[in-house]
């Protein structure tokens, strides 16, 4: 090994050389930094607290409608009920594959398997698997259905694909596809969806954004930035706090409701 910085010094003294490389690169970095610093970003939300979850690699979360507990799915294909401090209360006798979305509606738990394009329907009370529905989708293997929730405004389930492209699919109560909406410009990707307070709320992992949608027109009403690594699931608890679960960190983050 030599002394690279001596050689760099020699290079910088070579007529013409530094002008070609270093000055333009330096100028570009400065310009980009200046432009980035003036970038208008959504309001940043700070978590008010966080807690570890026992669920390994949690990929989505929703509130139990009657209790102060959460229904959670993990990447490796399991369905859990978890208390508000992240402790597992029960686990379904089920081993799925690449479970990415979960929601509860009228006593049933709906779980999406992204990889197999299947919706598994469980009884909320018994946690027993009752039926499976296939929803064909030809997009990328790991870019299929990432989120599910029930849209009370339009009285239908909605499922969103993760990316490339982002589609919102509406399904009737019997899980038949009834509509498809292109949501490509909403975010870089979508990792979760939930219903709260008369609105649809989406979560983007790559953008780290929470997005509030009009549930009828699916227009974006507002966005917030959440500084969390790999946010994969969103829910609102009984106190109205927003709860976001991080897959990589295996933590629950609690925020004041943004609106």
């Amino acid at each position, binding site marked *: 090994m030599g002394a690279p910085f001596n050689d760099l010094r020699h290079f910088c003294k070579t007529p013409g050389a530094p002008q070609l490389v270093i000055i333009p*690169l330096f100028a570009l970095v400065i310009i*980009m930094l200046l432009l980035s610093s003036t970038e208008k970003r959504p309001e940043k939300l700070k978590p008010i607290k966080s807690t570890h979850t026992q669920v390994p690699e949690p990929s989505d979360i929703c509130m139990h409608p009657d209790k102060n507990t959460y229904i959670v799915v993990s990447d490796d294909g399991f369905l859990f009920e978890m208390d508000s401090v992240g402790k597992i209360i029960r686990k379904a006798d089920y081993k799925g594959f690449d479970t990415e979305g979960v929601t509860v509606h009228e006593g049933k738990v709906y779980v999406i398997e992204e990889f197999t394009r299947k919706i598994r329907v469980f009884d909320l009370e018994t946690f027993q698997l009752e039926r499976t529905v296939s929803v064909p989708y030809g997009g990328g293997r790991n870019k299929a259905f990432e989120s599910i929730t029930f849209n009370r405004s339009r009285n239908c389930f909605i499922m969103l694909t993760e990316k490339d492209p982002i589609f919102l699919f509406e399904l009737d109560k019997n899980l038949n596809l009834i509509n498809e909406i292109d949501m490509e410009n909403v975010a870089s990707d979508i990792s979760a969806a939930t219903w709260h307070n008369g609105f649809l709320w989406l979560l983007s992992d790559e953008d780290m954004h929470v997005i509030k949608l009009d549930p009828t027109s699916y227009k974006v009403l507002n966005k917030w930035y959440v500084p969390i690594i790999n946010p994969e699931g969103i829910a609102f608890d009984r106190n109205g706090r927003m709860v976001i679960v991080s897959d990589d960190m295996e933590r629950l983050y609690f925020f004041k409701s943004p609106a």
Partner: protein
Amino acid sequence: MRFLFSLLALLIACQNVTAQLTLGNGHHVLEITGSLSTYYNHRVLKETSDNRNKDRFRLRDAQIQLEGRIKDVIEYELQVDFVDLSSLAGGAIDPENPGLMDAWVRYKGLRFVDVQVGYGKLFYSRSSLVPFTYSPYWQRAELLRGDVFGRRDIGVTLMKSFWKQRVNVYAGVYTGLAEVSLRGDNDASGQPEFVARIDFAYPARYRYREIDTRNTPVPMIALGFNGRYANKELPDGRSFPNFATGEYGVKVVNGERYVYGLDASFQFKGFSAQFEIHQMWGIPQRNNDALLHGYYTGRDDGFFVAGGYIVQANYFSKKLKTIISIRFEELDLNDLVPGNAQRLSGALAYQIKGFDSMIKFQYFNVLKEESINPYRWTEQFRLGWQFNFK
């Protein structure tokens, strides 16, 4: 000409590829993806160079990749680059673009470890493991292109992740002939190469990517330690298969060869940086081996050392959809020969649609040469388009 028509047909077909990229029956799912990339290369030749092949268009990649899973037990991958396949024809295999990129099967049914068999990237060196399509550059650093140590080989790898994938461990045994192993020839030493890697990340798992496109909100680091060993002592009168020793003749040594490497990676709020250092220690079997350059004087000094390091810094502006990067690399091919080589590169990439459609510009500058590895040029400029269909 037939190839060009085929490529044109492929390009036209790609315009309509929007869906039906994944086939599945619930148990077995197959995903079809691919990439095309092409660039224009301008070289500033040395005044002494009489080789005027300096400016050209090049089709760098025309790849198809098949990735499959059978339940959650078996994964497989097959990736082919038609450009490189068409240029092989019995000559040297470019280790950075060997034609066949991947052909392996991974079994995940054992609880304690996953097993991968076949041909594919070796788990050695973080930068080597970053898929090329996620780089703003048109070429990897010289140290990591596959002529100092093999980047792909045929063999068996055991792998395991711990602590929420923050720690990854890999160990395997391979032919030791790297990309040349595809020709099916054995070497007369009959000895394999052993490769191992362990990497650690904090505070969360760290993917094999070099650009912080997610603007990570907390600082993240990853450290990796790599090692490989082969003892390939050839019987008298025998030699390694053609091209096995690589462009610099150090990729396989008639004797013992140790390679150690350390890599570190960092990312935070769009900024990212990588550092890698690799050191090779070769102990040729014979005192008159050309790699010793006539320096053998006694029992304890019949070895040579080679290696180098890279330092790379990057910034990603989400608003401008632009990556800017600068890389310094140093390579000493043999410590018995005075001097070493140094290069400075800069890259600028504009993302039309993420990494899937990206205009990339790379600038190379040779700061210093090693006498046993002279270049014809002093500077290079590459500008082109990378397109992935997924």
